[in-house]
């Protein structure tokens, strides 16, 4: 139950700058997700907050109190480690009781039992309490690691990919439980993941981390609909967003976009949107990268008006739907299709882009320029967090 503030945290391991000026302000009771590719520095941020790693520069404060020189034991944080870090010589029960039996956080055995039973019920592992960690599967170990944190009432929960090794069904139910539990307990939670669904579902706010720097902070919707650059856009969403290089040309009172598809030029009128057109005019844009999500690409297997022709590169099922990838020369387009289509590789396919859903990026800096319906999206996606 604390507000966690990081100011300009820097940390290097040898020549690798793991954290390069991280500043975060995590509000009391917030569920804050750190999201980014492997090696981005997410775990190092958690370690700094827990006190395991000492940053070389910058301050970490809990409720305004600077914690840099406080050792991990006295920070009162509960951490779930990615590799579980269970004590091999202790039973599951003793593992979970470990913190509550230490001098600093001592509780009565009766209280301990009650809390452990509650956590075990929530994680469906009542029958495992007498086992040793070596007798558990990875998913079960992960739940024990979670349980060891959840029995406590810390300043902040630090969770490093706590659901990564669970099976899909359990992961979904745990995700729901976790969100509810966090709301009930009223505690701050910092959660590291590389699964964007988890990030979107759990996070009050999400911070995108890459190469030790914060790329973007915002609500899940904000980051999904208004990614600050192409990197973020590609990270959020599966299959990932299509980025299509295009040239802007003047067309009557509006504009059009010209793309190269398999060596030939394809022209599309840009749908009218005040914000987009104003931006194009104001910046004098000649080249843009168009970002279009796979669900906003239409396809047909016969020529149709407004569709351009290309060939199928692959067709693969991802469960309840499938992804068609179309070859366009310098790039490929991914689009969502139903299962069970009879699609042959290298056969012709006709594609139409729903340009009125696209996001415009600067092709040089890769940064967000604008998008269609920006005002409307802003009004629901961008929330001020108290």
């Amino acid at each position, binding site marked *: 139950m604390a507000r966690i503030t990081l100011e300009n945290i820097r940390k290097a391991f040898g020549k690798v700058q793991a954290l390069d000026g991280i500043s975060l302000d995590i509000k009391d009771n917030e569920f804050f997700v750190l999201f980014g590719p492997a090696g981005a520095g997410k775990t190092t941020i958690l*370690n700094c907050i*827990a*006190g*395991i790693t000492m940053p070389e520069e910058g301050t970490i404060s809990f409720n305004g109190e600077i914690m840099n020189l406080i*050792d*991990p*034991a*006295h*920070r*009162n*944080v*509960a*951490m779930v*480690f990615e*590799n579980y*870090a*269970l*004590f*091999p*010589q202790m039973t599951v029960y003793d593992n979970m009781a*470990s*913190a509550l039996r*230490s*001098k*600093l*956080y001592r509780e009565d055995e009766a209280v301990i039992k009650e809390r452990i039973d509650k956590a075990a019920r929530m994680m469906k592992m009542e029958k495992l309490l007498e086992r040793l960690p070596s007798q558990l599967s990875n998913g079960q170990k992960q739940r024990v690691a979670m349980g*060891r944190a959840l029995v406590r009432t810390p300043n902040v929960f630090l969770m490093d990919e706590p659901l990564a090794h669970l099976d899909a069904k359990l992961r979904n139910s745990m995700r729901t439980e976790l969100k509810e539990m966090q709301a009930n307990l009223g505690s701050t939670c910092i959660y590291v993941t590389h699964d964007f669904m988890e990030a979107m579902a759990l996070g009050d706010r999400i911070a995108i981390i890459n190469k030790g720097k914060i790329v973007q902070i915002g609500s899940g919707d904000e980051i999904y609909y208004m990614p600050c650059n192409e990197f973020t856009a590609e990270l959020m969403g599966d299959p990932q967003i299509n980025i299509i290089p295009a040239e802007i040309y003047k067309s009557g009172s509006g504009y059009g976009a010209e793309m190269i598809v398999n060596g030939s030029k394809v022209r599309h009128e840009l749908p009218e949107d005040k914000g987009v057109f104003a931006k194009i005019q104001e910046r004098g844009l000649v080249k843009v990268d168009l970002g279009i999500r796979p669900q906003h690409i239409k396809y047909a297997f016969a020529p149709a008006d407004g569709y351009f022709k290309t060939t199928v590169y692959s067709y693969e099922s991802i469960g309840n739907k499938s992804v068609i990838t179309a070859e366009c020369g310098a790039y490929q387009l991914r689009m969502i299709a139903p299962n069970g289509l009879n699609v042959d590789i290298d056969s012709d396919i006709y594609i139409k882009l729903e340009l009125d859903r696209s996001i415009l990026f600067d092709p040089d800096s890769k940064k967000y320029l604008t998008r269609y319906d920006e005002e409307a999206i802003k009004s629901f996606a961008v929330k001020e967090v108290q």
Partner: protein
Amino acid sequence: MKTGKQRALNVLMNVLLIIYAIFALFPLLWMLLISFKSDTEVFTTTFIFHPTLANYQQVLLRSDYARYIRDSLIVSGGAVLVSIIVGVPAAYALARYNFARKEELAFQILSYKFAPEILVVLPLFMIYQKLGLYDSYIGLIWVYQLISLPLLIWVVRGYFEDISVEIEYAAQVDGYTWYQIFFKMLVPLIKPGLVSSALLAFIFAWNSFTFPLILASSKVYPVTVAITKYLGTDSAHYGQLAVAATVSAIPAMVFALCIQKHLVRGLSFGAVKG
């Protein structure tokens, strides 16, 4: 059901093992037999002789044998104890911390075992004379560190390296101090390695001959050196010699049996832990 081939293989394996067991145990048996023979029968009989306890009476009751055993226990036990107290923290440091020339230091510790004892014992003899460590318990315990410390450090270091550092972090976050973590979390995990290497170190120290022969004389008399007393200049009392050797093997065996449970687990623990 086992096939004939498997059964034949099984029989063959057991026969080979029995042959090896006889080969390995025969010297011990021979020693035991001699210990019951009188001096006149040592060379003239094999299995059929007139058993006598005279050798045992002579060695155990009419000589200072108990004192020799006690001296051996003090120096060997003391050496192992010092090795544990010094070696476990050293192994922890070598496993966990990064410091300049770490590997060189670890290798140097190991290199203490390279040189034959006879090579270093003469300079040591002169140093010990000057320092007043000659013929003292402390002197022998100290020099036995050359035998026991490298072994213990290298085995225990491997065990520390097998423990993921996150376990220590998790315990820190749970509110434990470093000392509590060390004794509650880490020591149980390294115990198999610690016990097996301590046992081996004890046996090596117990069997050490060169160091006590040269670096001790009348005040400290470990049993390995004492045994030579039964080889007189004019006559060799092989019977008494056999008694002394037989009895001196007992403490190490008792020690090994007591910690056998840990020993077997200890030698396989590092291998199966995935």
